[in-house]
């Protein structure tokens, strides 16, 4: 795992979350975690291809997901409606896009796939055959906790 490729995802997640939440985002203790990754209930996943391969997951519980979606839309949202789901997918896309931009400007060429959003109980996100180890960064916002799970490698 290349730390210099991971930092842009963490920095991007903090910056984007801080902007959409409108407040500071605190990072908790980093830890390594073998895939698969257990989810808190809502997982926005962006796959990466190119010189840097893997995936990035923004993971959170339903309540945080709904609060984030409401905040981003500037209107009340009571549940994970299709609009709320699309909003969270776009959040992941924005985070990944900014990180990809940073990496590209550093000479790493990669492309993010359109985001996937998975919602469910007792869910894990697996990458069969990828043999990836993930760096897990818990982020605390005033709307709830978001976990950034980054598993990437050089192609």
């Amino acid at each position, binding site marked *: 795992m290349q730390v210099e490729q991971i930092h842009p995802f963490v920095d991007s997640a903090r910056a984007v979350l801080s902007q959409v939440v409108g407040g500071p985002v605190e990072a908790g203790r980093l830890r390594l975690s073998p895939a698969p990754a257990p989810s808190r209930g809502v997982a926005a996943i962006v796959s990466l291809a190119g010189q840097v391969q893997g995936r990035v997951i923004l993971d959170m519980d339903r309540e945080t997901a709904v609060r984030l979606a409401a905040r981003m839309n500037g209107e009340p949202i009571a549940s994970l409606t299709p609009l709320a789901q699309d909003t969270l997918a776009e959040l992941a896309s*924005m985070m990944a896009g900014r990180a990809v931009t940073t990496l*590209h400007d550093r000479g790493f060429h990669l492309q993010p796939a359109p985001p996937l959003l998975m919602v469910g109980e007792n869910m894990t996100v697996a990458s069969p055959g990828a043999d990836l180890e993930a760096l897990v960064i818990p982020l605390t916002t005033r709307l709830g906790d978001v976990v950034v799970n980054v598993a990437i490698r050089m192609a």
Partner: protein
Amino acid sequence: MGPTDARTEPGRPAFRVLVADDSEFARRNAGKVVAAMGGEVVGEAATGRQAVDRYRALRPDLVLMDITMPEMPGVDAVEAIMREDPTARIVMVTSMGHQDVVRRALGLGARHFLMKPFQFDEAVRIIRFVMEEAQGPAAGGTDHAG
């Protein structure tokens, strides 16, 4: 009065906009900025192909174009639209702002770039700049507000 002023006559929007983005949230967000400026979203597209088709049908004053879309990327849609209408005003709205993408889009004729997530005031500033630039004498250039 120009296209970025308040409505020039009752019921007539200041300017007409096509919003191209595969995210409903992103389309709604862009629409809020347009509405606040007195403009009207006359069409939406979720793919680059739809963006080209709807531009042809609607001839909007402005296109807000995402880059990463299915069927046809936004930059390819820019190329297709500019080929048909070299006067088209297109602002790229994207989270992918690295140099290659920026260079290609601007080289094909996009007028400006807006990075997601964008601040409301920044979006207004850029849209106003692009719309007012088009009113100037023989603009034909790629001056971009900083």
